[in-house]
Structure formats: C-alpha cells, structure tokens
C-alpha cells in the first residue's frame, strides 16, 4: 500500500513537472521568436535602408536636406516628405493635443458617472474605425468643404491635419484620463482643504502632477500621427513639393512610400530611396519610444 501510494505521488509529481517544463518551453520559445522576428526586421530595414548610400553613393546630406525629389535624375532629396510628415503631425497635435487632454481632464475630474459610462464606448468605437474609413470621409466630406470655404482644390496640409487630429483623439483622451486618475487623492484633498476651487485644483495641482503622463499621451499621439498612411494619402494631394501654406498639397514619408513602392523596379535607385525613407520612419518611431521612456522615468 505504502509502495503504490509513494509511486503514485511520484507519478503525479513528475507529470506536473513535465507540464511545467513544457509550458515554460512554449512561453520561452514564443518570446524568443518575437525577439528574433523583430531583430530580423530591424536588420532588414537597416541593410536595405542604407543601400542608397553604400550602393548608389547618394550622400545622406542630399537625401535628408534636398527638396528636389527626382529619382530618374539620381537626386532623391526627401526634404519634402520629411517636412510634410512633420507639418501634418505638428498641426494634428496642436489641434488634437489640447482638445484630447481637455476631454481627458473632463472625464477624470468633472464628468458625472453616467456621462463617463456613455463616453467610454464612444471613444473605443473611434479607435476601432479603420483608417481607410477616416480617409474616405475626409475625401468625400472634408476636402469639398475646404474647397468651398477657401477656394483651393481642397487637398493638402489642412485636410490631412484635421483628419489626423481626429484619429489621434482617442489615444490622447484615454491616456490623459489615465494619467489624471493616477494622481493620488491626497493631492486633491490637500488642495481643496487649503481652500482652492476645483478649477484651481485641476489647473495648478493635478495637471502639473500628471505632467509626465500627459507628456506620454502627447508623444504617443505624435507616434500615431507620424505613421498614419492611408487616411493621409487620400487627402494630402501627394504633390512632391514643399508646402507653402496650410492649403498647399504636399506629401509625407509614408504616403510617398505607398504611392511609389509597388512600381519601383527591384534594385533601382527609387526602391533604395523608398527603403531609406522607411528606415527613417523606423528611427523616428524608436526616438519617440525613447522619449516616452525618458518622460516616464521623470515621474517620481
């Protein structure tokens, strides 16, 4: 009896042991696979993205700062797309940033419970809408509106900035609300106890206290805006010239890649230039992630 009980226990123990081993192995393999895949992607973009400089002997200075994009003439200056991307992102965050933070503040501090419960699903729906739908609505509603209001052809920076600001709103709202909710109640209570009004509390105590969280919200909004391709491509006009004003048609890094990528001959200068633009986008994304970590670390 004692023998079977002991061997029974040993059998159970060794099966549990095996299951644990298999589980750990699967999880570890999955993680290693993801790391390897990401590393391979980075390596691929880095090698293809530098071919413009190593194989075609184009100077990085010309690539980054020349406004003339003429791949047939061996002049792949991407300044137009860099400025285009930065402009639409800047305007989108100028519109969407304060707006999103304001809504986040409202939801976290001032809105009644019922309103918050109604707004939450609405914001989630906004996140779920595919970008092609945003672009389509921009093309069919926003572009003609800008055309009638301003007399230009409707495509350009303004249309792209407005579409983008709507797209980054949910990100900024949700993260701002989280940032404010994370501020300890002690600060709120202390401020109110000292005789401050609700608005003074929000403006002078809570928002500064949530500063790093709000900074993260803005940076991630920027990250979303810089990478957005399809919605921007439908309304920005895709003209390879530097924007002269809010109403001029221009192009951005992702939109230029998507327009010329499929037809670029393998091994051509155009293909290498597009890869360099993709690599540049990757570097910008990594920079933004570093910025997020930096901002978050300053939170004590």
């Amino acid at each position, binding site marked *: 009896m004692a023998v079977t009980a002991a061997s029974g226990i040993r059998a159970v123990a060794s099966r549990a042991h095996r299951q644990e081993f298999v589980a750990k192995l699967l999880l570890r393999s999955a993680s290693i696979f993801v790391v390897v895949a990401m590393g391979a992607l980075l390596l691929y973009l880095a090698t293809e993205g530098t071919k413009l400089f190593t194989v075609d002997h184009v100077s990085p200075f010309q690539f980054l700062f020349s406004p003339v994009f003429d791949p047939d003439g061996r002049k792949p200056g991407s300044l137009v797309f860099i400025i285009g991307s930065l402009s639409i992102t800047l305007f989108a965050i100028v519109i969407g940033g304060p707006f999103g933070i304001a809504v986040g503040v409202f939801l976290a501090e001032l809105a009644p419970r019922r309103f918050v419960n109604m707004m939450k699903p609405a914001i989630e729906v906004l996140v779920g809408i595919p970008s092609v739908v945003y672009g389509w609505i921009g093309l069919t509603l926003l572009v*003609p509106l800008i055309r009638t209001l301003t007399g230009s*052809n409707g495509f350009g920076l303004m249309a792209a900035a407005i579409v983008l600001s709507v797209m980054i709103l949910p990100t900024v709202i949700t993260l701002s609300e989280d940032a404010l909710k994370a501020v300890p109640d002690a600060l709120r209570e202390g401020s109110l106890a000292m005789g401050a009004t609700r608005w003074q509390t929000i403006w002078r105590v809570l928002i500064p206290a949530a500063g790093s969280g709000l900074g993260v919200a803005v940076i991630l909004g920027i990250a979303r805006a810089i990478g957005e391709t399809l919605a921007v491509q439908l309304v920005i006009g895709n003209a390879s010239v530097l924007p002269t004003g809010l109403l001029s048609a221009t192009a951005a890094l992702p939109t230029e890649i998507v*327009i010329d990528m499929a037809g670029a001959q393998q091994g051509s200068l155009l293909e290498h230039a597009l890869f360099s633009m993709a690599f540049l986008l990757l570097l910008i994304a990594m920079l933004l992630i570093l910025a997020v970590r930096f901002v978050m670390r300053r939170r004590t």
Partner: protein
Amino acid sequence: MPKTARIAALFLVGALVAPLAALADNSITAAGSTALLPLVKEAAEQYQAKHPDVKIAVSGGGSGTGINQVAQKAIDLGDSDIVATGHPELVDHRVAVTGFAVIAHPGVGVTNLTKKQLQDIFSGKVASWKEVGGADVRVTVINRPRNSGTRAVFTKTVMGDVPLSAAGLTEDATGSVVTTVKSTPGAVSYAAFSGTRGQGLTELSIDGVAPTDDNVTSGKYPVWSYEHMFTNGPPGPDISRFLAFITSNSDLVHKAGYILLRDMKVTETDR
C-alpha cells in the same frame, strides 16, 4: 497520447495539408495597368462563364507593378501600357490598342489646346485657364505615380523633354483620376479612353485632333499605346487560351472601349 501532443500533431498536419489545396485548381492571376483593367476584367468574366473550371483573379496596381510582379513570378500575367525594358525574360503579348485622352473638369471652358499649351499647363507654367482662353479658374494638374504606364505614354507623346510639374496632385489609378477630375474645378489630367468615355468630362482635342478611335487608328491623334500582357517565359496552355480569347474577340474589345490591333494603320516600335 497526451492532450498537448495530440493538439500539436493536429496543427502540424493541418499546416502541411493546407498549401496542397492551393496547387489543385488552375487559376490565372493578372495584375498591373489600370488602363487595361476594364478589358481584362470583362474578358475574365466572359471567359470564366465559358470555362467554369478556370479561376482568373484580376487587379490593378499600375503598369510598373504588373511588370515587376510578373518578373518575380508572383503573378501569371503582367498588364502594362508600356514595353518592359530591362526584362528579357518577359514575353510580350499585345492584346489591344488604347488611346489616352486629356480630360478636364467641365467648367474649364476650352475644348481644344495646342501641344505647346498642354506642355505649359502640365509643367506648371500656366496658373489659370484664362491664360489659354478658358474660364477664370485655377489650373490643378493631376498626375499619376512614377510607375504608371499612362503617365509614361503621356510623357513620351505630349510632354517630350518638358518635365511634369512636381506640384501636381498625384492619384493612384485611372479610376481615381477620373473621380478627382470630375469633382475638382479646374482639374486636368490624362487617362485611357476606356475610363474617360461617358463620364461627363471635357475630353480636350490636341492641335485640333479629337480623341476618337478613328483618329488613333489613322495616326492623327498621338496619345496611344499598345496594351501588353506579359508572361514570364512562354505561356502555358491555360494562359495561351485566355490570351487567344481576348485577341480574337473583337466585340469584347470594342465594347470595353479599346481598339483592335488589326485596325491600326500606323505602327510604333517603342510602345
């Protein structure tokens, strides 16, 4: 067998069997020129009705895309408005001829322009239609992407050495060009006959020559090209039959808005 091993085995078998299913059917994939797209789509529909065992998948993407993908053997037929230079492995099958019209928004107020005026408009020198005898509306040039066969034909036959304005808007495909010109006052662009006919747009005459089929076959209207369907190497029997179906079916070609090869009274070697 323990449960986890059983599940893993099932997945493995599934993963091995699934690709085999794809080898079974005879399917033809065609992609590329959006100027040729209406003809290939219509031909595919009629052919599949006659031969239900063959599946034909047709998409756009531009002439450059078509050539690239067939060169990489990703598709069977690469549709293009231009010849494939630098690809000696591709076999050229001409299926039709298409003319390209210079289209403008109906409100521009002109119906005929000289080649020089067109060059000035498309290179960005002309800011308002007033300068060429039209209405007081700002000129908005709409181009196609660099890989577009339509753009290549237009550049070769109209622009010559004059560069297209980089400040023009860019639209992906024949269809989106037509839509944008229709809705944007002052817009002007170029697109294949099959996409522009009956759309309510102004089709401009060049040096007094209207963009009609007759003017193309006689050689008076310069903006035309052969429509090519490239195969990587000699085509297999399925593809040959499909290509023969298109070239022998004059009704299909005419109804779709193209010109029969044999109607052409002039020939060109570099299109």
